[in-house]
């Protein structure tokens, strides 16, 4: 069966993937969120308010920028960058958090919790909460707090409480666990603002829909600038929200080739990467049926990536669906390739890409080189790399500042 954009169904299924594997305590809140979201979608005032925020608060539409020097360097297709790094707070995450903050207000809840890996979703949630006067608690792994100090500062400046997560691997996966545990006790008064197209239904759908502004704009901008749709679209995939938002509006355009780039880490050895679709298999994690990295007993495997935002052993269920249907090709870039791509974009275009986005760039440079000169390739530059400057310097043994 070819992929369709008419997913998920009412049970939250993308083909066989998705669903809702959570403790009974949370099911009422998920039902309520589903119902509120359906109402919001049908409510033109909700759409208008979100549209207004996107334009005047986030600075949308984000540019689709022809990266001429990068294209020349690769010697193939024309490369365009969808500049999500230019959004308020420096990444695509704000597209989702503003939408969920509006839903929180509609549900009459006053407190918001979130998980964060790189800190981008944490900052975006803290920002949206400040904007709407909501209390905000962000769960963040201790290891990620170390890697992403500037974002921790920002969250605190925005009035959010950052709670360090000390269990397990002390990264994104454990931050998700702790956010769910908080929600188990606070569900009557609190909204869990999940940061990616993952988790139990309806989150994969809601986050995809809010992020789809990326792909809708890209489609329109490409038609305006080039006169046709792109030939290739590339995005990085951790949980997969920037990729889902970019790909979804192109799913029914069979002529557009879609590539998702996972974190290849140091090697293909278990524990040395976070390439869930490349090396994983279907299973259950964090409320969803999807590709996961697990051992034969069902225990979640350790993962590694240079980028905190891709360091996750699962992936959104719609990506599993796109993989099974063959609509999206999933591939990977290693830590070293991502670091090289980081440098290339910095020097060729004067843009510091996030290490997450650098994975997409690394693969896209190879794909572009194999393409004809009049082909058009779009990279979702999902976030800016300022947050990674410290970590890049540390990895190279350089002093910073």
């Amino acid at each position, binding site marked *: 069966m070819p992929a369709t954009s008419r997913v998920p169904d009412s*049970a939250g299924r993308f083909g066989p993937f998705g669903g809702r*594997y959570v*403790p009974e*305590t949370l*099911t*009422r809140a998920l039902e309520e969120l589903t119902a509120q979201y359906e109402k919001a979608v049908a409510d033109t005032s909700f759409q208008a308010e979100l549209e207004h925020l996107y334009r005047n608060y986030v600075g949308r539409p984000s540019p689709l920028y022809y990266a001429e020097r990068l294209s020349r360097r690769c010697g193939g297709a024309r490369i365009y960058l969808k500049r999500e790094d230019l959004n308020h707070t420096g990444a695509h995450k704000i597209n989702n958090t503003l939408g969920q903050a509006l839903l929180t207000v509609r549900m009459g809840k006053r407190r918001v919790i979130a998980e964060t890996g790189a800190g981008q979703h944490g900052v975006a949630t803290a920002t949206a909460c400040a904007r709407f006067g909501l209390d905000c608690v962000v769960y963040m792994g201790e290891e990620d707090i170390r890697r992403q100090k500037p974002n921790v500062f920002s969250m605190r400046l925005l009035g959010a409480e950052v709670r360090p997560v000390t269990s397990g691997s002390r990264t994104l996966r454990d931050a998700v*666990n702790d956010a769910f545990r908080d929600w188990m006790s606070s*569900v009557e008064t609190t909204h869990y603002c999940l940061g990616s197209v993952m988790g139990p239904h309806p989150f994969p759908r809601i986050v995809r829909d809010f992020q789809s502004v990326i792909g809708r704009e890209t489609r329109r901008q490409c038609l305006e600038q080039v006169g046709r749709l792109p030939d290739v679209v590339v995005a990085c995939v951790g949980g997969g929200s920037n990729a889902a938002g970019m790909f979804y509006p192109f799913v029914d355009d069979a002529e557009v080739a879609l590539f998702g780039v996972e974190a290849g880490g140091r090697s293909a050895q278990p524990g040395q990467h976070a390439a869930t679709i490349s090396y994983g298999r279907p299973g*259950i994690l964090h409320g969803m049926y999807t590709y996961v990295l*697990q051992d034969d007993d069902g225990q979640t495997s350790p993962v590694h990536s240079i980028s905190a935002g891709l360091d996750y052993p699962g992936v959104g269920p719609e990506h599993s669906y796109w993989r099974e249907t063959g609509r999206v090709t999933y591939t990977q870039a290693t830590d070293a390739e991502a670091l090289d791509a980081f440098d290339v974009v910095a020097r060729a275009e004067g843009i510091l890409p996030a290490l997450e986005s650098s994975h997409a760039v690394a693969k896209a440079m190879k794909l572009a080189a194999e393409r004809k000169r009049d082909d058009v390739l779009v990279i979702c530059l999902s976030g800016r790399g300022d947050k990674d400057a410290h970590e890049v310097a540390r990895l190279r043994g350089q002093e910073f500042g």
Partner: protein
Amino acid sequence: MSAIDTLFQQLRTAGRKAFMPFVTAGDPDLPFTAAVIRELFARGSSLCELGIPYSDPIADGPVIQASYTRALDRHVKVSDILEMVAGLRPSDLGPMVTMVSYAIIYRHGLEQYVHHAIDAGLSGAIVPDLPVEEAGPLAAVCRRSDFSLIQLITPTTPRERARRIAEQTTGFIYYVSVTGITGERTELPPEIVDNVAWLREQTDLPISIGFGISRPDHVRMLAPVADGLIVGSAIVRRIAEARGRPREEVLREIGDYVCELLAALEAER
């Protein structure tokens, strides 16, 4: 009829309630877990709940979560746990069920997991991350094998939904006392009593209450409405705190603690 059905029938006839302790498998190792289970039954427990360690247990508080981490750090496997259970001969001791994530059951294969569990002598499973909408495939396998699939009802469950869950449940209903994660509480919400009394009118299934129960006054509060009471974190914490001490001594302490709660339960007959 499963061993669980038989147990509750006998208890009802005798006008007694079930004491149902929880222990994490493999914390700190499987031989000790086996010794704890023997002690729990020897002191008068009716049914034992065995926690299968899982890397990402979102319904569990810090005590059980940490016990799972300790067990997994020592690489305990489901097959080792089932072997330990088989060695205990549950048919001689009393019914045993596992608390197990659907992530683990799915990875093993539904049929395989249930058949291996039955071969080891287990009578059922509590799957805390499998709500009624998703439970169909596992429920079908369990029904065919007379293996109880114990489902949970919580304070946030709407009444219509609670009826639906009760219809799908076998063995007993696990009523979750609080809106929250596992762990000892000083006080329990008073509305549990009314909620369970309401549920009692909807179903003939036994109703056991768990989450937060750790003190004799909790037992006195809930025993009149429940068929069974589940105590987990309080036992797991005692095992965690006993590290390095002689095992006989720790077993006796756990046994004494259980006796204290059982005395409160018997007093409510």
